[in-house]
């Protein structure tokens, strides 16, 4: 029974590792900033799962709270400001000011 569990865990780890690389590839080389930021937050959560699998619960907590949480919020709010600046610019250019 232990053998089966270990094999299935190994498959799970393999899948998790592949997903991480896939998400990172999409996040870095895909199109669209908002999509990249969302994928980055997903990557943060996958990473905290990885830290649990590697036997580091403290790091999993820190990654989830800081890596996915605070950094994700920071990126989203920065994206919002960027978009507002872009529309601001367009409005200024539009008005020819």
């Amino acid at each position, binding site marked *: 029974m232990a053998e089966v569990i270990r094999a299935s865990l190994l498959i799970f780890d393999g899948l998790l590792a592949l997903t991480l*690389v896939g998400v*990172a590839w999409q996040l870095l080389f895909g199109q669209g900033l908002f999509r*990249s930021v969302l994928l980055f937050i997903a990557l943060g959560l996958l990473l905290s799962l990885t830290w649990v699998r590697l036997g580091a619960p403290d*790091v999993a907590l*820190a990654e989830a709270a800081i*890596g996915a949480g605070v950094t994700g919020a920071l990126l989203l709010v*920065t994206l919002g400001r960027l978009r507002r*600046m872009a529309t601001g610019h367009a409005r200024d250019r539009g008005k020819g000011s």
Partner: protein
Amino acid sequence: MAESLHAWPFFGSGVLLFVLGLHALVTRPHLLIKVLAFNVMGSGTFMVLLSAAARGSGEPDPVPQALVITGIVVAVSATAVALALMLRLYPILGGAGLPPGPPED
């Protein structure tokens, strides 16, 4: 708890994350993507550090965990400064992409 075979998938993906981040940092012009690339590189390094520690049987080594927690907090601080600087730069650059060459000031 986890024998050496267990750590290998994460070694590989850690190295790949580091390398993908480095490549994206060099080739992608948009500053926000560069900031994401830094974080991905950092996560790759931390994955290498922790998978090495997870290879040994028995109690996992606490020192790499402390290093990674410190690294995550340092990464969020550097990201915050980079994003704040990028927002200040946006009206100047227009496209939030670094012009390739140094400006001829």
